[in-house]
């Protein structure tokens, strides 16, 4: 839990610093919120925990929240639509069945949604927020991988495939199925080059400019997506955030429309997000652009430094040798006063020797005198009253 709290504390501070507001959505939602076209893929829907509620005689199914973004967007549509730009964050768990037994079926996420602003600067903002979180967690090697669903769609559209095959390929690519490319037969040399692009990766924005010139037959859709992608890369260069362009990076959700990105550390994906301007309109909320990301807490807990997780060693152990009425009263008085002074103070009658805490206050059966030991300064002092003890310990702590 310490790792969890550390991550969520750093995340919340970063969000508050950027002016974001915390929201919470229910664990139990109606399934139809997620089945509408363009929200969750059939593969994901095949793994949700859905069931008939106690009032499910109408055939309406409920589901344990399988995704964090869609409920937040619903919350925005129901409560915040007229208010302009909304900057929201949440710490929440999502549920998905997973058959190997190696992953959790209940996964915690720290998520951010920025609704109402289509400017590329917003994409940079959410990415910067994420970088603040990595810095706060002491993680220096997090890799940002960028892709663009518009570019992927446009490239697939130019492969000259049958409509059905095209749709299937797109779904597989967007779900992250990299083997999907191997199954496609290129129609001609140009298509072969396009296919190669989908599986390759480059480094900086120059790569995109090279791409654009290498494809004179690119249609307007592809050109527009490439320009959009290049604009983000330029801005990231400007603010000094490094990244890798990898077109095979997939968002995993069909509602992404523009740039999408993933965070990788130690060979594991620790976060992902992007722009999804189509989601709010699909959910009936009107033409509202949106972008955001989520950080996956479970893999992160294993990856953060152990020292970040250690207990505070500044606290006090109030040790009573015998639980007489006087001793009990003194111990609890001490505890209350120290707590009021903002100290961690633990009461113990079991006589345990290992404390890991800086201070020990030994309370005898009679309740007084109190022997204070400072393990760090290697000093000891006897005092007569609770007030004196609190003065010594509270001040130094």
């Amino acid at each position: 839990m310490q790792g969890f709290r550390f991550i969520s504390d750093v995340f919340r501070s970063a969000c508050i610093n950027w002016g974001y507001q915390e929201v919470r959505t229910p664990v139990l939602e109606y399934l139809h919120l997620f089945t509408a076209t363009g929200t969750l893929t059939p593969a994901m829907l095949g793994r949700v925990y859905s069931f008939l509620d106690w009032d499910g005689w109408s055939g309406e199914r409920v589901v344990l929240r399988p995704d964090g973004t869609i409920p937040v967007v619903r919350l925005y549509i129901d409560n915040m639509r007229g208010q302009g730009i909304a900057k929201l964050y949440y710490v929440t768990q999502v549920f998905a069945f997973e058959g190997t037994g190696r992953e959790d079926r209940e996964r915690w996420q720290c998520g951010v949604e920025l609704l109402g602003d289509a400017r590329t600067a917003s994409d940079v903002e959410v990415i910067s927020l994420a970088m603040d979180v990595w810095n706060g967690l002491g993680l220096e090697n997090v890799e940002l991988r960028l892709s663009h669903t518009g570019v992927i769609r446009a490239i697939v559209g130019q492969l000259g495939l049958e409509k059905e095959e095209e749709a299937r390929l797109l779904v597989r690519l967007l779900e992250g199925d990299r083997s999907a490319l191997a199954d496609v037969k290129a129609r001609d040399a140009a298509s072969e080059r396009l296919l190669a692009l989908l599986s390759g990766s480059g480094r900086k924005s120059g790569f995109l400019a090279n791409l654009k010139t290498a494809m004179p037959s690119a249609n307007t859709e592809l050109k527009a997506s490439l320009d959009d992608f290049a604009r983000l890369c330029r801005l990231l260069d400007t603010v000094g955030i490094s990244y890798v362009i990898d077109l095979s990076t997939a968002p995993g959700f069909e509602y992404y429309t523009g740039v999408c990105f993933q965070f990788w550390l130690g060979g594991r994906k620790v976060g992902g997000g992007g722009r999804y301007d189509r989601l709010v309109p699909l959910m009936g909320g009107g033409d509202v652009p949106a972008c955001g990301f989520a950080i996956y807490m479970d893999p992160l807990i294993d990856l953060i430094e152990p020292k970040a997780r250690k207990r505070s060693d500044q606290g006090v152990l109030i040790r009573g040798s015998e639980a007489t009425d006087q001793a009990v009263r003194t111990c609890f008085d001490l505890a209350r006063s120290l707590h009021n002074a903002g100290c961690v103070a633990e009461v113990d009658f079991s006589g345990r020797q290992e404390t890991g805490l800086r201070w020990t206050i030994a309370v005898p059966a009679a309740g007084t005198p109190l022997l204070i030991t400072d393990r760090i300064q290697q000093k000891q002092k006897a005092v007569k009253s609770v007030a004196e003890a609190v003065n010594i310990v509270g001040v130094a702590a």
Partner: protein
Amino acid sequence: MRLALPKGRLLAPTAALLKAAGLDFADYSEATRLYNFTCTSFPGITAKMFQEKDIPVQVAVGNYDLGICGRDWVEELLARYPASRLVKVAELGYGRAGIFVASRSGATAPRSTCRIVSEYPNLAETYAINSRLRGFKVFPVWGAAEVYPPESADYVVLRGDGEDELAAKGLTAVARLLDSSACLIANADAWETRDLSRVLERFNNIRMVVEEKSATNAPAVSVNGKSQWRDDAVWLALPDGHQKEPTVAFLDRCGVRLKGYDLKSDARRPSGEWIDAKVIRPQDMPQQVANGNFDIAITGRDWLTDHLARFPSSPVEMRLDLGFGRVRIVAAMSQDLPVRSVADLKKLIAEGRLSPLRVCSEYVNIADKYLWENRLSPCRLIPTWGASEAFLPDDADLLIENTQTGKTLERQRLGIIDVLFESTACVIGSKNSPQSAIKAERIGKLLEMFRRGLER
């Protein structure tokens, strides 16, 4: 080695196949009243007969090593539980059919939430999700799916021989989900660890004379895609199966004239002067009435109780107890166990003798409630679609079943340890008010006719 064999439409061809394979099971024939069989050529092999829909479940949980059933039921189970411990060993080539998604011929596609009715609810839901239907509700039914559209459903997922057969029922196929035929399945653990080859090799090289079904001669029914029902008529659901005969007699006694609901015909859309009716399965009626697809239905108190056990806030209620079709809903166990009461059963469980307690029932919700009310735990509840008394003692320990005379239970050497309640035929309606004053008046009038019929 244990085999699960189908009853119903696959029985005759399966018996023929087994005979041709040299795996003859005496008495496994259409006239049989038995459920358990032994193989005459291989005495170590036994078989039990089940409803087709039960077979994939029984094989997957390991009660049976091999099973023969339609591939449609296997896919129905796998659609919801893809990790089921099942292996599809071979297609057997007979009993061919297709699973179709169909709608009423000529009906327009629904604009918002579409209602899908099916005996294959898992296949239906998979279809809805893959087709990106924005809003959909799947209603599982025990049968008669084809009669629901267009008034009570927008789509049905059903088995059919082909598009001609569907057309003869007034339905048009929207999609073909899969081709089904009889298939041989095995339990995955048995397949992976035991040597089943001496039985399996019998299925190779069988030359089955498969009679190809001739194209149906019935012409396509010319239907109107729109609702045939009148807004102000009473929408009535009538039972098929063994409840039909006493219901026909009762309606006659009440003076309720319905054209098409009699013992001679199989018609599914009877109607009267101000009544529009459909003949459907009694199990499905409570949910259909709750959803407003029907105003009034004649079903049994057992199915009403089962529905309310699952959905306590449902608006369905009993309007009239009709008194006929009296059965008791009982808990039964094998007479070979030292159990004569629920207290005895609890003692046996506490001793660790039945752990987990395996329970089977068609009344899944009544059984579930009974088990937790009586603190019978740990237990495993397996739903079944018929012939539940055959499950004991090999495949289940406790049965929740209806019994009229008790003879069927006696024949299977089962003893009643508890009586849950008594069930009779009844009329059910919804607490939600009807859409029009005329309809409300007519519903009242029909109920009055029923009441007077009871007094006669």
